[in-house]
């Protein structure tokens, strides 16, 4: 993609900028319709209708909200630390956007073909933590600060099971690169990691239950990492007003929102790449059978987006199913349940791969 753009524009800088901006083209519409989907899903789960008045069945509601947010006054509280208060939403967004650099959207488009994509994705979540802490502290509001501290504690804790599960998957596949990992799960859905990987051996059958455990652990801990219900302690409306985003208004609030929904898709895509073949189609490609090679990347983009959106929908479904956990329950789930299980899982998967 980058090479193609370099040839097209004849300038490295322009090409680099364009290819770096491509995920935005994906994220912004995703956020706009993700927010709508969230409201619609929540409404229908509660036997309501949700937004109905802007466009057909309210499809343009978020667009209208977006314009509303742009027009809103940008309020900065008097006691706030102006510099960091202004910087924090962008830092949080950077943390969420940086993940997209390592996600393979198709076999031809990946931001950075780095060899350590998975490791990098775990690392950049630190930006989001720092940004949330910064926003919470700079707001000079105790609810914001509580939210920020809770969020940081939660993200730091839940990074451990995430990392352990990813480690076990790295042991299985032998690569840290998301592109290679997707490449390995090619062809049909039984080659996906959740079904024990592409290698046909009796270990494949042995692996399947542990893969499911790994998947569940990863899904839960990524849910906590993006601060979604039932783990939305940082924003807990009933306790902390709106957590770290209490003092924010207008576009800065929208940036937090953008980061949250961007993160949701990023972790869903990560889960789909690790366990569900990423951009790989479950039943082979139409482009191959028709002999149209140019069609394959588009198909891959479709499957990638579909899998990601499916997991995002499951996140929403979970959100409107479960009540919020308490802080101590949150920590119990992480330290007393997820971490021991992921450790055991790591060891077992390691042993099976050795066989």
């Amino acid at each position, binding site marked *: 993609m980058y090479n193609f753009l370099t040839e097209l524009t004849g300038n*490295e*800088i322009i090409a*680099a900028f364009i290819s770096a901006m491509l995920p935005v083209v994906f994220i912004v519409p995703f956020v706009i319709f993700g927010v709508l989907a969230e409201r619609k899903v929540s409404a229908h789960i509660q036997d309501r209708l949700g937004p109905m008045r802007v466009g057909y069945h309210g499809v343009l509601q978020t667009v209208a909200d977006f314009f509303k947010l742009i027009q809103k006054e940008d309020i900065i509280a008097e006691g706030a*630390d102006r510099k*960091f208060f202004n910087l924090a939403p962008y830092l949080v967004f950077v943390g969420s956007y940086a993940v997209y650099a390592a996600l393979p959207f198709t076999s031809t488009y990946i931001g950075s073909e*780095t*060899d*350590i994509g998975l*490791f*990098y994705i*775990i*690392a*950049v*979540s*630190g*930006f989001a*933590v*720092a940004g949330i*802490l*910064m926003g919470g*502290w700079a707001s*000079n509001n*105790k609810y914001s*600060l509580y939210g920020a*501290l809770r969020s*940081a*504690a939660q993200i*730091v804790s839940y*990074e451990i099971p995430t990392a352990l599960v990813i480690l076990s998957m790295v042991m299985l596949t032998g690569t*840290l690169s998301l592109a290679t990992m997707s490449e390995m799960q090619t062809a049909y859905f039984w080659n996906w990691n959740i079904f024990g990987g592409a290698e046909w051996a009796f270990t494949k059958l042995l692996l399947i239950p542990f893969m499911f455990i790994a998947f569940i652990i990863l899904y839960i801990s990524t849910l906590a990492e993006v601060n979604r219900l039932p783990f939305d302690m940082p924003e807990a409306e009933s306790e902390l007003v709106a957590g770290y985003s209490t003092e924010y208004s207008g576009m800065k609030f929208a940036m937090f929102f953008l980061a949250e929904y961007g993160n949701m898709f990023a972790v869903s895509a990560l889960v789909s790449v690790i366990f569900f073949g990423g951009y790989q189609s479950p039943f082979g490609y139409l482009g191959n059978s028709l002999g149209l090679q140019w069609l394959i990347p588009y198909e891959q983009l479709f499957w990638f987006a579909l899998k990601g959106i499916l997991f995002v929908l499951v996140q929403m479904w979970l959100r409107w199913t479960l009540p919020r956990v308490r802080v101590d329950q949150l920590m119990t789930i992480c330290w007393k349940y997820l971490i021991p299980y992921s450790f055991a899982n790591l060891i077992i998967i390691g042993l099976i791969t050795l066989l």
Partner: protein
Amino acid sequence: MELYDIIFYLFAAITLLSAFIVVTSKNIVHSAFNLLFTFFGVTGIYVLLGADFIAVVQLLVYIGGILILLLFGVMLTNRITSVDIRTGTVHIIPAVIGIGILWGALTAIIAFKTNWIVKPADSMEPTTVGLGNLLLTDYVLVFELLGILLLIALIGAASIARREFEELKD
């Protein structure tokens, strides 16, 4: 390469500027947050040098770990609402003299004693495989010792936390 030069100077500027603020800022939380940009700039420079693994480790350990821990410490140990969190500068003149002499000596040594080699930049290659091999062959003892050290630290932390818990129970 022109583009790389621009990016390098950008990261260098970020690092130096924020490091300067870290040292001079009177507000300790400001210092801590500026440290974030210092670490980030260093990460960028690592990436430009082709040390991708080190760059990500820098990001993970320093930004994701140490910085967050630092901020937690600052925020939890000080009274947050009041503006008590301040650091002052004392003994400016002796410090300037001392650091000046040290810095002068160091730069002199670096500038005159180093055998500079000028050669075209290596192509960027993934370093993970080489690092992994080295860690588990040549440096395996150090690696294991470090692991044990971390384990001891972890157990120590857990035991401290546990004792308090039991005292509370009584």
